[in-house]
Each structure stands twice: as C-alpha cells, then as structure tokens.
C-alpha cells in the first residue's frame, strides 16, 4: 500500500540555517510541493549539491542526499545517475557554485543531457562568504569589497544553457512559489537535463533585491522546441522574465550508450579493464 505524502513530509527534521527573509525557503517549499504533486517516493530521490547557502538544501529534504564539494554537484550527480538511472536525480546550488567554479561542469552537463534536474538558486552574490560579487552580479553593483563595481559583464545562464545543449531551460522566482512549483513539476517530468534558474533574493547581503517582486514578469508563455526562437526570446529578455523558454526531446545519455550495460557490468569488470 502506498502512503500519500504531503509536501511537509518531504522535509527533513534538520532546521534550515538560512537567514530570515531568504528566498531559498520558498524554493524548498516549491520543490516539496512538486515532489508531493508527482508522488515521487522519497527513496527514489537522489539530491546532490555543491557548496554555498543554497547547497545546504539536500539536508533539508528527506531523501537520499549528498552535500558535495564546491562546483562539483553536477559531476557527482552525473556519476550517481550513471550508476542508478532509476533514481530521480536533483542537483541544487547557487550562482557562484554553479557558474564560477562549477561553470565547466554546467556546460558539459547541458551537453551530456543526462536525465536530471538542476536548480540554481541565483541571488547574484556569494552570501555564505559575506557578500562578494558572483558571476551573475551586475558590473555596477557597489559593495565594500567592490567599491567601484566588478566591471565584469554577468554570466548569462539561460543563453549558456541553450548554447551548450540543455533540453529544458526555465526561470522561476522564489517570490512566486506556486508558479515555481509548476515549473519544477514540468522540469522533473522532462526526460533529459532540465535547468531551472530561480531568482532568489538575498535579504541580508542584497537587500535591494526585495524590489525583484515588482520587476519579474511572465515572459516565456509557451516553451518552444526551436533553439533559434529560444535564443531570440533569451536575447530579448531583461533577466526578469519567468517561465519555460525551451523544451525539446533529444537523446538522453546513459551508461547504456557507452560500451557498458549498467545492468550487466559489475564494478569489478570495469576495474579489470584498467588493470595493467
């Protein structure tokens, strides 16, 4: 007999240490709603992260989890998915973790198109280390550490995901958790690499982001499977457009595509091939 789980049932007993007012609470809420809606059993979820405020999230979800090393959430998750294709693999992290030190893994995870969900909780700042500019920070954001701004153009996550071959690309906002949970449901159901950028205000280090609530808008009304149209939509986007911009069914990479059949090949057999 299966027991119907409520969103709250997907939360662990560990209390989040995020700051009061942090947008990440809403992402946790939206994710648990999406998991409950899809009735995904807890033991079929593998939740992986890197390092940062957002990367604490696997501890707050009552599933299998791995709090990895900085920028390597996607690498760990790829290994997990290769070994256990039956699991729903979810990866989460922040803009620093995912686009700076983990930027290369991001590109290749998009290209590889393994069946997993990658959520980047983007607050445009390194919050855990007290407010340095991150890859998505605007060049003119002035802080004590960057008194004249960083002067560097921000990383464009949606454009890079599209150019790198991601098969599902969306943006959500933590201030609208209901719409976000719908995006996450679609992303979890999509066969392939689903990338969801979630704008998540950092109340402590970027208090001005409270204004995002007035700036976000529905932009990508219907997802397209045409990469040229998606590129155009992203080009016209002001960075605050919400919705699913691109979705296409393309072949998923799994171990079955390699020389090894993951159901038949043991670790010992693989290791044996490398013996000198």
């Amino acid at each position, binding site marked *: 007999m299966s027991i119907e789980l409520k*969103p709250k049932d997907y939360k662990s007993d560990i209390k*989040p240490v995020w*700051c*009061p007012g942090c947008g990440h*609470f809403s992402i946790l809420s939206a994710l648990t709603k999406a998991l409950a809606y899809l009735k995904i059993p807890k033991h079929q979820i593998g939740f992986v992260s890197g390092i940062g405020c957002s990367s604490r999230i696997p501890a707050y979800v009552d599933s299998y989890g791995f709090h990895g090393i900085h920028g390597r959430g996607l690498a760990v998750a790829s290994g997990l998915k290769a070994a256990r294709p039956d699991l729903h693999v979810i990866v989460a992290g922040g803009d620093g973790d995912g686009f700076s030190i983990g930027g290369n893994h991001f590109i290749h995870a998009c290209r590889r198109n393994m069946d997993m969900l990658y959520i980047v909780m983007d607050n445009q700042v390194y919050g855990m280390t007290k407010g340095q500019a991150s890859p998505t920070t605007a060049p003119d954001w002035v802080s004590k550490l960057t008194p004249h701004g960083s002067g560097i153009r921000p990383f464009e996550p949606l454009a890079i995901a599209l150019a790198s071959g991601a098969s599902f690309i969306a943006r959500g906002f933590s201030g609208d*958790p*209901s719409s976000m949970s719908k995006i996450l449901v679609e992303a979890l159901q999509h066969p392939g690499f689903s990338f969801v950028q979630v704008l998540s205000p950092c109340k402590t280090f970027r208090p001005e982001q409270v204004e995002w609530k007035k700036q976000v808008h529905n932009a990508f009304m219907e997802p397209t499977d045409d990469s040229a149209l998606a590129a155009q939509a992203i080009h016209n986007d002001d960075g605050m457009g919400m919705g699913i911009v691109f979705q296409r069914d393309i072949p998923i990479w799994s171990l079955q595509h390699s020389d090894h059949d993951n159901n038949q090949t043991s670790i010992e057999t693989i290791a044996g091939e490398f013996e000198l």
Partner: protein
Amino acid sequence: MNNEKLIIQSPEHLLAQVYAMKCESEDRLQDLIDSLKQHNNSAAADVFSRTIELIKVSIKNIEQRTQGMQLPEIPPWEAQWHCEVQPDCLCIENAHYLMTPLQALELAIFNEKRLQEFFILQVNKGVNEDVRLIANEFLIQEKQLTVQMHSWKEQLEHSQTEQNEDFDPPNVPE
C-alpha cells in the same frame, strides 16, 4: 488573476484551499521561527510562536469540520489567491534577522489582513451560498484573531524595544 477567476465555486474547494493555506502557513512560519532563533533573535521568534498557535487551532477546526468529506486536490498553481504568495503566508522577504518584535507583529497583522481580503471577496462576490456562509464564518474568526493581535501590539508599543544591532554587519553598500 481577475476577480471572476478568484471566486470559489464549491464549499469543498473553499475548505480544501483554506486547509492547504493554513498548513502551508504553519510550515513556513515554523521555518521562520527556527531561522530567527538560529540568528539569536528569540524576541521576534516568540511573536511568531504566538501566532503559529492560532494557526494550529484553525487547522484543527478545519480537520474536525471536514472529517468524512472528500476534499479535492488542488495543485498549488491552481489556487485562487489574489497574490503570488498565499494570502496569510508571510511575505518572506519582509522578515529580517534584526527585526524587532513589533515589526514581527506588524508583519503578522499585515498577513492576517490579506487573508481577510480573500474571505471578504468570497463573501461579497461569491455565487455559491454555502461558500459565502463558510467564508463569512472564517472571516469572523480571522477578525477576532486580528483584535487579539492588536492587543498584543498595544502591549509591545508600551514596552521599550530597542532596534537590534549587528556588530559585524553584512557587507552592503553604505
């Protein structure tokens, strides 16, 4: 969402939505209480601990009322709110680790008022008589809670509360 789309058509839908809303509020409020305690602001956490007790009573009441009823499952994105976040769920971005108990209570009252607006809409514009009656019952209960919160507010206004200060402040523009 226009007003027409916000009108709930059946008592079951209203009860399901209010129940989901109250459960979510309890959950989110508990997160905030825990977070405030983690940040050594137990004074503000205490205010929310008082309001969460009121929500727990509401949840029990709805559970008793709906015993034996088959309530519809409403996906979160189909909820008929007049705002992105459900009406009585804290506008999370308005919370802060330095918030005073008075600010905490003002936020709780603000959310309470938003919830009342939701019920007022159902009472005034509803087309189903049962929905209007139940919504009115909820509205009366919520108004009583607001009176209680205002009396707490008066007590707080009379007590001396200082603005909280962080001696190692975040690196934000001056």
